[in-house]
């Protein structure tokens, strides 16, 4: 079987992306007809204050959401898996991921209004973190459930406090799950529309909101150019992360040698 299924997945995932990239070079404005190659949309994009503002806001929101979600989500996973097994709490922890997002969106707006909370990037971060926590907790729990607790037992037998055990033994053990959870929370927040729409300030929208209001005439090459640039930036970011992590690994290996 080999890696053929993986290629199936990648073709499926990236064919529309290819379309987006290609159409960003469309000379005409019409999203449906190709009329020649043009690079004009890229510089136009960078000068578009709305889109750049939306991008900035979205990055701030996604980062903030990831931080809160990872911290609280990991703690929640620990609590639910080890200390408070309860079907009710399971449901409560899963609820944000389970309820229709417009329900959460309207509820949060009503709540913010009630407590007179000023809308802005922070209100969106808090809102996104609600389901960010649920997703991180779910992913970390899967890992925790299968973890062999004998290492932690050994650590405590040797006299380490609970906190130290958690920090030095448990945490490294669940690190891959935390990273996966962080990735998930960041990704979900980056592209989230409904909740952001209701909880953002009208003068400070996130990128999905800007794009949603920009497709009045369908998706123009300029919007496709934006998507292409986003992809490029993420690709470069990932390459850098890969480089630095490989560097970190080799440094650690060097230190470990006697």
């Amino acid at each position, binding site marked *: 079987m080999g890696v053929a299924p993986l290629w199936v997945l990648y073709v499926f995932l990236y064919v529309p992306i290819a379309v987006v990239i290609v159409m960003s070079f469309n000379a005409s404005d*019409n999203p*449906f007809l190709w009329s020649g190659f043009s690079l004009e949309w890229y510089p136009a994009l960078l000068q578009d204050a709305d889109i750049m503002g939306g991008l900035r806001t979205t990055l701030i929101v996604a980062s903030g959401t990831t931080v809160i979600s990872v911290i609280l989500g990991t703690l929640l996973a620990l609590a639910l898996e080890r200390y408070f097994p309860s079907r009710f709490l399971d449901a409560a922890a899963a609820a944000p991921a389970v309820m229709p997002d417009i329900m959460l969106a309207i509820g949060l707006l*009503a709540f913010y209004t009630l407590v007179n909370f000023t809308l802005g990037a922070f209100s969106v971060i808090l809102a996104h973190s609600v389901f960010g926590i649920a997703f991180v907790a779910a992913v970390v729990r899967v890992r925790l459930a299968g973890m062999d607790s004998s290492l932690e037992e050994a650590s405590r037998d040797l006299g380490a406090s609970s906190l130290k055990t958690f920090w030095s033994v448990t945490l490294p053990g669940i690190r891959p799950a935390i990273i996966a959870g962080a990735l998930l929370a960041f990704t979900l927040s980056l592209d989230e529309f409904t909740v952001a729409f209701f909880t953002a300030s*009208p003068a400070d929208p996130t990128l999905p*909101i800007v794009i949603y209001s920009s497709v*009045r005439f*369908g998706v123009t090459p300029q919007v496709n150019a934006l998507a292409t640039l986003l992809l490029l930036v993420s690709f470069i970011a990932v390459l850098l992360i890969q480089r630095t992590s490989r560097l970190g690994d080799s440094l650690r290996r060097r230190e470990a040698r006697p």
Partner: protein
Amino acid sequence: MATQRTRARRASVLGIAGAVCAVLLAACGGGSSGGDASPSPSLDPSADLSKQSIVVSNWDAYMDPDVALKFTDTTKANITVAKHATNEEIVGKLTAGGDPGIDVAFVSGQYAQALNEAGLLEPIDPRLVPNMANLYPESKNLSFDPGSTFSVPYAWGTTGICYREDLMAAAPTSWNDLLNPAPEYEKKTLMLATQPWLNLPAAKALGFSANTTDEGELEQIKQQLLKTKPTLLGFDDVTFYSRLAAGEVVMAVAWDGWCNYSGDPNVKFVVPSEGADLWADTMVVLKSSKNKEAAMAYINFMIGDEMQSWMTNNILYKSPNKTIAEKAAAELGADFPNIAMTPADLAKGESLIDLGAASKIYQQIATEVQAS
């Protein structure tokens, strides 16, 4: 373990208590919109606008991209532009309660009426909007706001059928040409997805009012739409003009200016013989605005010659500004017949009003038709 279960139970109790509190809070403090119709203290025509700053929400690309610069140059007030994609969205935001952070909103006329009846709008102060004198009287007397007391029209027009002249044997003349299309046009037609424009063709074809709330009439409208649905390609508010240009559809229900966007001279517009509607996109000032003088100055600016000229030349809708409309009719009327329509022509259309409670029934019809 007993202690663990107790803790879990405690957590559950906390959760339920929280929900109960929420319910009580909602019962007491909820119900955001609830008309406070008292007029605010009168506005000061000599207010210093350089100290004011407004947020304006509009559809994308519906105004001059340089409007912020030009407005600030002219009046010294600051402005931020926000976007919304549909009427429902912006009205939803404005009626959700609290301060929406918006001073001026662009909404279609019937929605302005709804907002006003919810007590959310500031009456227009004619002293601060002197350019209103230059608007057609007909545009200031539409049935959703006779006298333009809380809304000012920015653009107006009607709805009809956009069609490909070269791909059809004969030009459509009646709504029935689209509602019961010839077999060769099946699956090559589109209708608008939003009410009341979804009902409009059927209502007019059956001879009813576009604003009807009569149950019997609405039932007939629904039956006609259910009959039409299998012949449609789909419901589309956004990309239908591109599909016309691409030849994928030959007829689409459309707001009049949209037929001009394809750039294809074969795309023509017609108002069917049974008549259509008269819609207007208007500007309103929110009562919650803390910068009402600047807001009024903005509206004044947008109905002035410069901005109306941009609008009619770029959006290709009709302008309610008399000077600009006559100029546009002379310059563009030959290429874009919809711009050559006079207020008298428009007045043949039925002006749309807010349907209030009946909008639920209209939405139910839309749901049933789309789900069928």
